[in-house]
């Protein structure tokens, strides 16, 4: 079994209204010195068997084009070594 984490964040230059809302809320609730908050998505993907080269390549492609919207988002893909047997 393999467990993959894909994290998708808006590109730094793109407006992130959700992050801004969270930043303001944190400030209102007393957290000082909050410089910036960005909000993204995390996908936890559990695959049967292990991640061979083919599936790894496909996964990267799908992360880049399906999970992330390449026009406005970047993605990061990590294999969760602990959970991956």
């Amino acid at each position, binding site marked *: 079994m393999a467990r993959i984490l894909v994290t998708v964040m808006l590109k730094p230059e793109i407006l992130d*209204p959700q992050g801004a*809302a969270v930043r303001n*809320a944190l400030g*209102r*609730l007393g957290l000082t010195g909050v410089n910036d908050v960005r*909000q993204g998505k995390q996908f936890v993907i559990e695959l049967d068997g292990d991640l061979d080269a083919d599936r790894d390549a496909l996964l990267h492609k799908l992360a880049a084009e399906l999970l992330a919207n390449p026009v406005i988002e970047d993605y990061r893909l990590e294999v969760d070594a602990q959970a991956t047997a």
Partner: protein
Amino acid sequence: MSTARVGVVTFPGSLDDGDAARAARVAGADVVRLWHADTDLSGCDAVILPGGFSYGDYLRCGAIARFSPMMAQVVEAARDGLPVLGICNGFQILCESHLLPGALIRNDHLHFICRDQRIQIENNTTAWTKDFPVAHEIVIPVKNGEGGYVADDRTLDMLEAQGRVIARYVGGNPNGSYRDIAGITNESGTVVGLMPHPEHAIDTLTGPTADGLPFFTSVMSFLNSAGHRTDAHAGVTA
């Protein structure tokens, strides 16, 4: 006896506050508009948390509104028996505030949905449903993107056992709500959360039906029946 005062809270991003105020007015209430940043319930006998996208609903629906100064007042007063109706975003705020159990998540089909929805009123003893006949079916608009009611099985069983599911979707579940739940109440039947929008169904000119009006007349009857006019709330807010 003076007319009951019903407060409607406006948060930044509230959208149905005007509609809720209109509905309460049509039901005979003296309507007071309450502002999220204020800390005074202005002697209201009941409060409505209207629909909309408070704070853009960016983090989670209702998550940020819950921390507003006005909500601190509402939560405290609700624990002392103040009738509170949360519609849609208001329902989400009530769950986020833990005045009601469970939570509302993204619709199972992942789309915003606006449609005329059949629902059955299953509990007509709450402050907000007492004017409905038993097991009455009505049609009112539902419109939400995150209207799926979820809770763990124990909570759901408890709500069922205590008759606290006040309304259920019939003829198709619009959002994947567990057990077709459209609305629930607290233990005392004073706080009600409802996903569909009765305030958009108070006359047939602008709504699909006038089936929503009894929610608002109910609270008026509730307040007018002996013992529930809570001038005592002045004490809470003072």
